[in-house]
């Protein structure tokens, strides 16, 4: 009976003689596994990163509930199935909510406030100069909600001062002169900004931030601080245009108010709803004036107050599920923070499942081809080794010995291919992830934009299963030619002339 170590020696020696064939087979075999491992690793990693991002994004969901009309099944007025029909139907079914709905919701037990999302723009926040302040939009929320978000130790501002919830993201970034990038302030703390009084310009229409320029001309594009001269030039040019373009000057006149930071939140800057309505009205009035000065007909007021969704604040956060039930009973669709995230997660999960299935399909196809390759390689080796088989048999090898030698060869090929494939695949996934993340961190302007640590992950069980599967498949692929070798008649094999 042949020893196991000798079996390995004979099998690997035969493979080493056919280096090119072996390398080709192992490499082709690994290729499928590379695609498979890398894509599955990246998909898993991106999924995890996406879930984290979703979770983070949910913090910008500042109302307790969002209420939407109950979606009816689209009545198709055109032949269904075409893209045009789908778009058409979607625009037709967009049911809207009116002031009546708002009143109805206000009467629901446990509801604190109902409002539709109102935004005020353009605005300018006069933050301390060392921070980046291109914030040009305020979002309105009921005063009760702002009071809930406000820090407890900050006194509510006096009349005439706007209470404001500032977004952390805009306070945390600082321009780094050497790196020419915005970075997180090392000394950032909530306490530094809470209670601070700042200037708030309503209707400040400056799309470009005058303090910073994005410079493409230098070798490394990026932000830089504008020079004194550049700022002067801008002043001069607007002064020069003053007489000829009177309308613009009106348009440039902003309302300067005092605001006090009463709280910090993520992403959105919140002001009380009544103030936001007044501010909007003021901006609209000023715009009408500007248009009149230009001699343009003033556009009609925006039609109707109907909206696609209403926001709801609930008095007691613990009562949210009960309130959701009550509103649903009235015939609306309700999203809570949790249900919204869950919905997004479900959507993402389905998408990822599909993508994963596609890659599994590709992987399995390549895998099947690889098995074919192992089969042909082993067949070729068997065909090339007839005389060798004859000699082995003549000096006493049994059929089992021959079978073992060739199966072991296929196994070696499969194992080498699988290991190489998994290693390269993991390496590729890690490489792509690192490259993408490096690129992303260079591109982001707001350092508070969360960038995940990695975009790839390896599931050990899956990896082991893949390797085991590859080895098993190559054993099976090698079985048929190995049996042919074992059954070869020794005399015929010996008298074979090449």
């Amino acid at each position, binding site marked *: 009976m042949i020893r196991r170590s000798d079996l390995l020696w004979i099998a690997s020696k035969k493979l080493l003689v056919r280096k090119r064939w072996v390398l080709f087979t192992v490499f082709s075999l690994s290729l499928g596994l590379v695609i498979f491992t890398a894509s599955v690793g990246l998909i898993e990693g991106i999924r995890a990163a996406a879930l984290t991002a979703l979770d983070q994004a949910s913090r910008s969901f500042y109302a307790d509930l969002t209420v939407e009309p109950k979606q009816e099944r689209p009545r198709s007025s055109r032949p269904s199935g075409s893209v045009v029909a789908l778009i058409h139907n979607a625009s037709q079914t967009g049911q809207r909510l009116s002031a009546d709905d708002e009143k109805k919701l206000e009467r629901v037990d446990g509801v604190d406030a109902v409002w539709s999302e109102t935004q005020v723009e353009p605005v300018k926040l006069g933050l301390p100069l060392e921070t980046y302040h291109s914030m040009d939009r305020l979002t309105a929320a009921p005063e009760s909600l702002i009071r809930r978000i406000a820090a407890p130790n900050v006194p509510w501002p006096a009349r005439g001062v706007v209470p404001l919830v500032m977004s952390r993201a805009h306070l945390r970034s600082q321009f780094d002169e050497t790196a020419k990038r915005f970075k997180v302030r090392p000394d950032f703390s909530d306490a530094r900004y809470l209670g601070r009084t700042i200037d708030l310009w309503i209707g400040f229409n400056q799309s470009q931030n005058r303090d910073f320029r994005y410079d493409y001309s230098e070798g490394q594009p990026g932000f830089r601080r504008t020079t004194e001269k550049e700022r002067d030039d801008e002043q001069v040019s607007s002064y020069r245009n003053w007489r000829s373009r009177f309308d613009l000057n009106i348009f440039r006149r902003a309302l300067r108010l005092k605001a006090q930071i009463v709280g910090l939140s993520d992403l959105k800057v919140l002001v009380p709803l009544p103030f936001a309505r007044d501010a909007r009205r003021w901006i609209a009035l000023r715009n009408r004036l500007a248009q009149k000065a230009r001699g343009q007909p003033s556009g009609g007021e925006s039609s109707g107050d109907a909206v696609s969704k209403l926001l709801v604040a609930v008095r007691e956060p613990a009562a949210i599920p009960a309130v959701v039930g009550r509103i649903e009973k009235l015939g609306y669709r309700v999203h809570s923070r949790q249900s919204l995230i869950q919905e997004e997660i479900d959507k993402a999960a389905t998408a990822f499942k599909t993508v994963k299935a596609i890659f599994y399909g590709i992987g399995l196809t390549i895998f099947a081809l690889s098995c074919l390759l192992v089969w042909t390689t082993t067949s070729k080796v068997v065909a090339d080794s007839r005389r060798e088989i004859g000699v082995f048999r003549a*000096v006493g090898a049994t059929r089992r010995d021959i079978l073992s030698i060739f199966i072991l060869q296929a196994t070696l090929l499969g194992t080498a291919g699988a290991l190489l494939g998994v290693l390269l695949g993991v390496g590729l996934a890690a490489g792509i992830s690192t490259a993408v993340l490096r690129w992303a961190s260079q591109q982001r302007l707001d350092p508070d934009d969360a960038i995940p640590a990695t975009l790839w992950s390896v599931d050990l069980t899956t990896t082991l299963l893949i390797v085991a599967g590859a080895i098993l498949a190559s054993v099976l692929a090698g079985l048929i030619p190995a049996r042919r070798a074992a059954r070869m008649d020794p*005399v015929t094999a010996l008298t074979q002339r090449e």
Partner: protein
Amino acid sequence: MTGDELSGDPFIRVDDVAMDYRVANAPVHALRRVAFTVTAGELICIMGPSGSGKTTLIHILGGLLTPTQGRVVVGGRDISHLTDNEASAYRNSTVGFVFQLFQLMPYYDAIENVALPLIFSGVPAPVRRERAREALTAVGLGHRHSHKSGELSGGEMQRVAIARALVNRPCLILADEPTGNLDRDATRTIMVLLKQINTGSRVTILVVTHNEALSEYAHRTIRIESGELV
């Protein structure tokens, strides 16, 4: 089992052996009713024209072919009805083959070639190397143990093949035209070597040859024509 224990009785007894090959349903009678005996320790030449059945006979004696008819007893054991595994074990332990075309593995070096039969009897590697080296020394090639067959002359290759046939200490060496591809000097070296092995360790040797001159090395010559002894 060695030839010594059985001296007295014939070591090989071939009884009424016939071998038919079936080609396109028409039988080819390679051997017809062949019968002879060989005493242990004999060196015998087998001669005959091409196609007369010499190789067939050697293969039957070596357990590579099962005769269509008749009985072959080697060392007191009937080898004409062995299973495949038994035949493998018989070839491994009792027989050493020497072929006209040497049949060495080109990518094994000399010592690995010689040690090959020991692999299939499960001898551990260090013992294997030791015995292969001894066998190589016995054929006068102890210093060439790490040469590949491409680096050896025809005569040297055949000596390596003889070492391989010797390494398992068989009682029977079957050589099918071992000098068929060699010149006169190499032929003499091989025949002297076989004779030396035959006398030295009393191994029974059967040598198939076309060369009449080689019969001088043999104790006797068996002639075969159209599958029959003459």
